[in-house]
């Protein structure tokens, strides 16, 4: 069957890479998950009797708290990465600068996700008492 794409478009590699909807879908999926997660986090944090170390550790060491906090950190950093990526792609028009910014932002988000999960697990397994 004859391709509907123009010869120039084909040679230049323009057009569908068959993953256009992937980013959009993940952005929606993470945002749906973040609605209950962020609401839960805000309410639980504000409900704590105090924010001293003993209280926070006791709260964070509970299995459900640790589990939901890990989910929050992972989904929030993922959603943030997807979001700032689009912002950079839209507003940074110099190719080299754009790529560099995206690389740095990806590394920062990966670092934040790992640091957050590590911290929660350390507290949950009794390493911060």
């Amino acid at each position, binding site marked *: 069957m004859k391709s509907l794409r123009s010869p120039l478009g084909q040679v230049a590699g323009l057009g569908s890479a068959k993953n256009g909807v992937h980013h959009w879908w993940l952005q*929606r999926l993470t945002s749906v998950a973040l*609605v209950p997660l962020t609401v839960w986090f805000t309410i639980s944090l*504000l409900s704590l009797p105090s*924010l001293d170390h003993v209280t926070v550790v006791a709260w*964070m060491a509970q299995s459900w708290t640790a589990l939901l906090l890990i989910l929050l*950190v992972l989904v929030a*950093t993922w959603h943030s990465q997807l979001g*700032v990526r689009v912002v950079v792609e839209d507003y940074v028009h110099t190719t080299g600068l754009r790529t560099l910014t995206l690389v740095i932002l990806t590394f920062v988000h990966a670092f934040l996700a790992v640091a957050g999960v590590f911290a929660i697990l350390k507290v949950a397994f009794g*390493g*911060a008492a």
Partner: protein
Amino acid sequence: MRARPISPHLTIYRMSRYSLLSSITNRITGVILSVGLLVLIYWLMAVAGGNRPYLQAHTVLSSGFFKIIYAGLLAAFCYHLVAGIRHLVWDTGRGLERAQSKRSAAIVLAATIVLAAALGYWLFLAAGRAS
């Protein structure tokens, strides 16, 4: 090669349009919340660090400067949450007519103010958390 189309062209639209204003506000609040992630992870690392590092971080995080940051993050969170839900409703194909969109923009603004006021009261006055 001809320049490929880029978006969004912020400068050629009239900013009085509700939808554009609410769209760019959603982006700005999203970026603010991304920066807020740094505070969250710093706090989590401080908790994991033990009593003494936590006390040091707590001193930093309860300063007047950070109270302003919390107020900003709180407002950004409320807007991004409500406007995000509006986007999810749009994704189902509902509420896309101009009149509906105008109305939902007003609802988003009102809900944000109510939510931010309630959470702000809880954070700064009732719980005294920011102290």
